């Protein structure tokens, strides 16, 4: 009963309700602008809300988190510029839908599925947080390595019709990811003595360049192509559609919760793995993947919003952040005099249920703010090129600068924009590049950590891999996915089912 009381705190107070709504509204727009990240917004709010009551401050921040994760899909669908790395997979099928004049439908569907994903995350947080966090803690460096390998196999899905070019692009991305101080030994790699390169090339700058600027340049190239007329009669998705895709969105939401709860991975990897999952389980999509398949839009959107609840799981139960944003939340709780840690649940049980309730409330506001204003937004794509292209470039520059208040990031972003343009001209997909950038560090670090802890013995590495149930499951799924894509499998299947 008490729990219900705490749960409803933010629902029954007008102040908290309004702050959550305001946060969610701002979040949707902050999330939509590439470079303006939820992490940044929340950390600025820490000093801004310093003197506030802790509940008020949290409501505003939770709203921004929930709205921001959703908002990243907006620009991904409309302009092919993901607002955040977790919306990269959304652009793959969302933008082709917009090109066909279905932007309104795409946003409507992604909103509903985001909200469903969000609720799955919240429900798991509310009912199974301790269990999930103990499970997430079981992941060893080798398991993270295998998640990375699972992710990198997505190159196959992202390569378009030429795998060789896709592998090349992916390898290029991994190379970019290695620039900077070696995460393990702090030796400089490809930095040429430049201090600004110590932290590596920011993946977000690469992403904005490859998607945003290259899109603007490509549009300049095809200046005479008329803008696509958007059908905006149907915004709220058909009930039949929601029902049809519900199983898929529940599956990918579960992926989102687990990957979000892992302290070493966040919504970006969750969304990519979800996209891959959708591609494998959907036997006969109405539209092929990459050309506007609704499944390809739903999967990452459900997963990245489910990852929000997931990220809160280790944070609220163990004081371990599940991603960058929850790390900032931990700082906020400290500043407000709470002691987030494994004892939070027993010392301040109200905090847990308050957060669960507040997340649920913010998720409802996502639905409201997501479904309103779509008509206006869809018009963006219909804008004359003379307005649209400068707008994209402006957004890209502002976004790149905002990542770290650094001019260097703007140059990187522009450079990758030009590279992206030529890649598109020569039929190379840009998706694998960003995949390589995101995953190279995860794989690099965890491969080396796991081999160091085996005293550099490969046999020991495999013995431990095969004797741990978790590692074994991951390993077998990698093998199965790999083999199922080879001709041997097709032949074997043909023989069995003859």
């Amino acid at each position: 009963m008490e729990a219900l009381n705490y749960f409803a705190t933010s629902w029954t107070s007008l102040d908290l309700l309004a702050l959550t709504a305001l946060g969610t509204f701002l979040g949707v727009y902050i999330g939509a602008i590439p470079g303006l990240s939820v992490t940044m917004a929340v950390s600025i709010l820490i000093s801004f809300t310093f003197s506030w009551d802790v509940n008020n401050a949290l409501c505003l921040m939770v709203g921004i988190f929930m709205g921001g994760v959703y908002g990243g899909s907006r620009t991904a669908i409309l302009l092919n510029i993901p607002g955040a790395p977790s919306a990269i997979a959304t652009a793959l099928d969302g933008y082709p839908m917009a090109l066909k004049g279905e932007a309104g439908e795409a946003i409507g569907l992604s909103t509903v599925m985001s909200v469903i994903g969000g609720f799955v995350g919240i429900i798991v947080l509310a009912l199974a947080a301790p269990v999930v966090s103990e499970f997430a803690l079981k992941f060893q460096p080798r398991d993270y390595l295998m998640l990375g390998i699972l992710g990198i196999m997505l190159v196959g899905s992202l390569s378009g019709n030429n795998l060789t070019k896709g592998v090349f692009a992916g390898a290029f991305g991994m190379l970019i990811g290695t620039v900077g101080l070696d995460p393990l030994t702090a030796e400089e790699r490809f930095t040429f003595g430049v201090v600004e390169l110590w932290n590596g090339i920011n993946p977000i700058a690469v992403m904005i360049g490859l998607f945003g600027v290259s899109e603007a340049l490509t549009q300049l190239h095809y200046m005479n192509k008329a803008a696509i007329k958007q059908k905006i009669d149907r915004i709220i998705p058909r009930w039949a559609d929601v029902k049809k895709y519900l199983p898929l969105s529940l599956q990918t939401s579960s992926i989102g919760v687990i990957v979000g709860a892992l302290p070493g991975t966040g919504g970006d990897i969750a969304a990519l793995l979800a996209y891959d999952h959708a591609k494998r389980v959907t036997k006969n999509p109405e539209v092929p993947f990459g050309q506007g398949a609704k499944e390809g839009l739903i999967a990452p959107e459900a997963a990245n919003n489910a990852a929000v609840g997931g990220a809160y799981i280790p944070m609220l139960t163990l004081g371990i952040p599940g991603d960058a944003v929850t790390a900032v939340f931990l700082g906020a709780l400290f500043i407000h005099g709470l002691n987030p840690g494994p004892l939070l649940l027993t010392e301040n049980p109200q905090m847990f249920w308050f957060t669960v309730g507040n997340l649920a409330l913010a998720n409802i506001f996502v639905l409201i703010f997501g479904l309103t204003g779509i008509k206006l937004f869809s018009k963006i794509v219909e804008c004359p090129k003379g307005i649209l292209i400068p707008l994209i470039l402006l957004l890209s520059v502002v976004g790149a600068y905002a990542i770290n208040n650094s001019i260097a990031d703007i140059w990187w972003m522009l450079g990758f924009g030009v590279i992206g343009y030529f890649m598109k001209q020569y039929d190379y997909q840009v998706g694998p590049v960003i995949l390589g950038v995101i995953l190279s560090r995860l794989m690099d670090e965890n491969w080396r950590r796991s081999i160091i802890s085996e005293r550099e013995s490969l046999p020991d590495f495999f013995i431990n891999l095969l004797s741990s149930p978790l590692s074994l499951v991951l390993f077998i799924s990698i093998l199965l996915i790999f083999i199922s894509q080879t001709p041997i499998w097709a032949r074997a299947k043909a023989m069995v089912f003859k």
Partner: protein
Amino acid sequence: MGVVMNKRLICALAALSIIAAPAFAEFPKKDIQGVIQWGAGGSTDTVMRSVTPHAEKELGVDIVMTNRTGGVGAIATKFVYAKKADGYTLLMGAENPQMYKTLGLANLDYGDFTPINILARGIPIFVANNDAPFNNMKEFTEYAKANPGMVKVGSTGPGGLTSIVLAMLDSQVKLDLTNIPYNGDGPALTALQSGALDVMPAVLGAAIEHVKAGRMKVIGLVDVKTNDLLPGVSPITEDFPGFSSFLPWGPFFGVFVKNDTPKAAVDKLVAAYHTAAQNPDFIDLMNKRGFSIMNVAGPEAEKFLNTYRSVSSWIVHDAGFSKKSPEEFGIPRP
């Protein structure tokens, strides 16, 4: 005519008084910029964002804080150094710059800055996985000797707290440990709970909540005296008296301005942060996180900074992972 002259004279005088009349008599005249060396949500960030609002009240202007991460804090340090020495740009940092010269990371350290306030110091401890077959430093070193290479120790890269504390231990007893690097003590302490690591030297504040909840155990306290937060844990100097030549030592948080900032501005900032660091909320926060409040400026702060630099630079040099000898920079042996 005379009247006109007079007016001109008055105007000129007034203008002069604005320019010359020590602009700093009324420091600060505009908002101040605070540059934080580490990322949002980290301990430096948390400390700075919780003390600064109290200092703003004293100064009557806003202190706008931004995180400029990268190069173990060197990006922010260089950024502030490139600004005018007028007191309007503050460097909010941790201990790292004191090692830049020896590690070959930069030609700057806190010797190029004036301390406004060294707010607090962290206390290093050794924590271990609950299942580890040892409960104190003595048992740990004996176990590690008997099982060379079998104990997995987390570290946070060269020059980090763990590397220095391990180098201190190495100067007392030679052990064959397997070092596994993580990006910061947060991820490493998570790995300790997952069993990927056996032992981790960390700052008390980062581990205390996990210790209280019984998710890991403390096996050593790297200080000269016992700590109220860790009842029953004896200081490391009892088992290894040689440690006392390095202690007390610990990572710290401080606010700095570039050298040659006008004295009036420095005094004003020192006074503001001195009052801010006495705020009960801030003290409570620091105590809970296991940091000991220092709240010092002037010669006292400089002495602490120099000692820190000497101890850390030489221990790292003697352990063999410095790029340059501390001697080159005239850093005396402790």
